[in-house]
C-alpha cells in the first residue's frame, strides 16, 4: 500500500472509532443536538429585537448565517478536547505502537468532526427555518455555503488539533479555546453589522475570516441587506475566495505542525 492510501485508510478507521463514541456517549449526542438549537433561539429571540442590522432585512435572516459560522468555529473545540482526551489515555500508546500512519490519529479526528459539523448544521438549518430564516438564492448556492462552512470548520479543527496535542488537558483546552474563539466570532459581522464597530476595530472585522465566511454565506443564501453599504475591503468584496485562501493557509501551516508535534510528543 502506498503511504497515501495507507493514510486515507487509517484515517477512516480512526474517524469511525470517534463516531462510535458520539453514538455510545449520549451526553455528546445531546450536546451536538441541543447547543445549535439553543444558539439559534437565543440570538433570534433574546437579541432579535435589540439589534437592528439595517432596513430591508429581518434580523433573523441576517443572524442565521452568522450563527452557522460561529457554531462551526466553536465546534472545533471539540476536536481539541477529543485529541487532548486521547493523549491522556493509554489508547494513544496503542496507536503509536502500531505500524499505522501516525498522522491518521489527528486526521481521523478532524474528519470525524466534519460529520459532527454536518449534523449540527442540519439541525441549525431546520431550527432556522422554523424561526423564519429562508434560503432566497438557488439551492446550488446554498449547498456551496454549507460546503464553505464545513471546509472552514475543518481548517479550524486543525488549529485546535495542534492545541490538543500541545495542551493535553480537556479543561485547559475548553478555557483556552474560549479566549481565542470568543473574540474571533464576536469581533466579526456574525451578530452585528459591520457599521456598528468603531473604526479601529473595523479593519480587524473586515479581515477576520469569520466575517468573510459569514458574508459569503449571506450572499450565497441570499440573506444580505441590499440597503446596507457594502464594505470596500477586498476581503469583504470577495468573501468566499478570501475565506478559501484562509482555509488553505491554516491547513498548510497547522496540519503539518500538529502532526509533527504529535510525532514528537510522548506521554
Amino acid at each position, binding site marked *: *500500500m502506498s503511504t497515501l492510501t*495507507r493514510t486515507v*485508510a*487509517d484515517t477512516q*478507521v480512526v474517524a*469511525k*472509532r470517534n463516531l*462510535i*463514541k458520539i453514538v*455510545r*456517549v449520549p451526553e455528546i449526542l445531546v450536546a451536538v443536538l441541543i447547543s445549535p438549537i439553543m444558539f439559534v433561539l437565543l440570538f433570534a429571540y433574546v437579541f432579535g429585537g435589540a439589534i437592528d442590522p439595517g432596513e430591508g432585512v429581518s434580523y433573523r435572516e441576517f443572524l442565521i448565517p452568522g450563527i452557522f459560522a460561529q457554531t462551526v468555529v466553536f465546534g472545533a473545540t471539540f476536536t481539541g478536547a477529543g485529541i487532548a482526551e486521547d493523549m491522556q*489515555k*493509554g*489508547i*494513544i*500508546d*496503542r*496507536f*503509536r*505502537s*502500531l*505500524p*499505522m500512519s501516525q498522522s*491518521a490519529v489527528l486526521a481521523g479526528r478532524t474528519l470525524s468532526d466534519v460529520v459532527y459539523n454536518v449534523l449540527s448544521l442540519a439541525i441549525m438549518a431546520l431550527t432556522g427555518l422554523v424561526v423564519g430564516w429562508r434560503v432566497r438564492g438557488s439551492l446550488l448556492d446554498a449547498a456551496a455555503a454549507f460546503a464553505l462552512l464545513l471546509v472552514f470548520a475543518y481548517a479550524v479543527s486543525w488549529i485546535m488539533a495542534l492545541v490538543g496535542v500541545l495542551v493535553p488537558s480537556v479543561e485547559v483546552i475548553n478555557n483556552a479555546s474560549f479566549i481565542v474563539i470568543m473574540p474571533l466570532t464576536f469581533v466579526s459581522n456574525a451578530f452585528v453589522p459591520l457599521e456598528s464597530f468603531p473604526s479601529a476595530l473595523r479593519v480587524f472585522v473586515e479581515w477576520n475570516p469569520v466575517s468573510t465566511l459569514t458574508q459569503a454565506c449571506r450572499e450565497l443564501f441570499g440573506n444580505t441587506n441590499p440597503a446596507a453599504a457594502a464594505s470596500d475591503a477586498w476581503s469583504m468584496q470577495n468573501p468566499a475566495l478570501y475565506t478559501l485562501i484562509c482555509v488553505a493557509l491554516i491547513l498548510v501551516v497547522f496540519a503539518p505542525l500538529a502532526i509533527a508535534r504529535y510525532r514528537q510528543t*510522548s*506521554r
Partner: protein
Amino acid sequence: MTTATITARGLVKRYGQVEALRGLDLEVPQGTVLALLGPNGAGKTTAVRILTTLLRPDGGSASVAGADVLHAPEEVRRRIGLSGQSAAVDENLTGAENLEMIGRLYGFRRRRAVDRARELLAGFDLADAGDRPAKTYSGGMHRRLDLACALVAEPPVVVLDEPTTGLDPRSRLQMWEVIQGLVRAGTTLLLTTQYLEEADRLADDIVVIDHGRAIAQGTADQLKAQVGGERIELVIADAADRPAARAALAAVAAGDEVHHGSTERSLSVAVREGARSLRVVLDRLEADGVAVLDVGLRRPTLDDVFLTLTGRTAEEEAEPAGGTASRDGRGRHAQERDAVPARPDVTPEVTR
C-alpha cells in the same frame, strides 16, 4: 536459538535531573521469556517504552526482531505487540470493535479483521462480552482484551508491561495461563513485573533492575539460590524445645544458618526442597514431641531479592543506606513476617 530477538545496549534515558535508565543492557533470545523485575520507579516501563518505539532513548541502541528501534521504528512496530499496565483499549468500543479497529490499522481487509477479532475473543474467554462496550468489563477482562489487542497481527515479539498488576488472584492466574499459552506457541516475550512469583512462573531468565540499571540476572532458580530460596518459618509452643527445633531445621537447611525470629520461639531457615523439606521438618518435630504453634513455607519475594541484592526492601526507596543496612533490614523484615506468620494453606503454589 542464538538469534537475539530483543537486544538493548547501554540504554540511557533522563527526565530532567532524574535518570530513569542508566545504561541498561538486555538480551532476549528468540522464543524465550525475559522478565524485567523491579519495584515501582526502577525504570521498567521506560525500558519497555523505548523498546516499543514509544520513547527515544538519550543514549544506547536497541533492536527488536532485527529492526533498529531508533532507525526503523515502523519495522519494529510491525513485529511487536504491546500490552501495557494501563489497559490501552477504547472504552466506548466493544471488545470486537477494538480488535477489528486494530486489525484494520495493521492493514487487514475488513473480513480478515472481523474473523481475527472473533478468534481472539473466543481464545481469551471474551466471546460473550465481545459485543459489549469495554467500559462494562471487569479488570481481568480489560487486561485480556488489551493482551488480545497486542496479538492481533500474531507478532513474533510481545512486550507486556506489568500484565497482572492490580488484578485479583483469580484473574492473575487466568492471565498467566494465557501468557503461558503464548510462550508455548514460541513467542519471544519481554515482561515487566513487580512479583518474583510471576517472573518465576513465566520467565526463562530474569533481570532485576533498580534505579535504571540491572543489578542481577539469572534464572529464577539462580536468583532464589542467591536469595536463599524458600524459607520455612516455624513458631514453637515452648521455648524449651528450641534446640530440638533448631536441629530439625538445620537438617534441611539450604546452607544458610538457622535464623532466630523476633521471639524465643520463632525460627526460620532457607530450604532447597520446599514442601518436601517442610514435611521432613514436621515429621521430625512430631517424632521429637515438639509442639508447633505455627509453621509456613514462604517463597522469596521481590523484597527478599532486593534485600539480598541492595540491602533494602523494594518499598524503602529513600532509606539511607548505612553500613549495617543489610543486617538491620533482615532483622526488621523477620519481625514483620513473624507478626503475620505465613500458613501453608495460603502459601501460593509451593512446587513448580
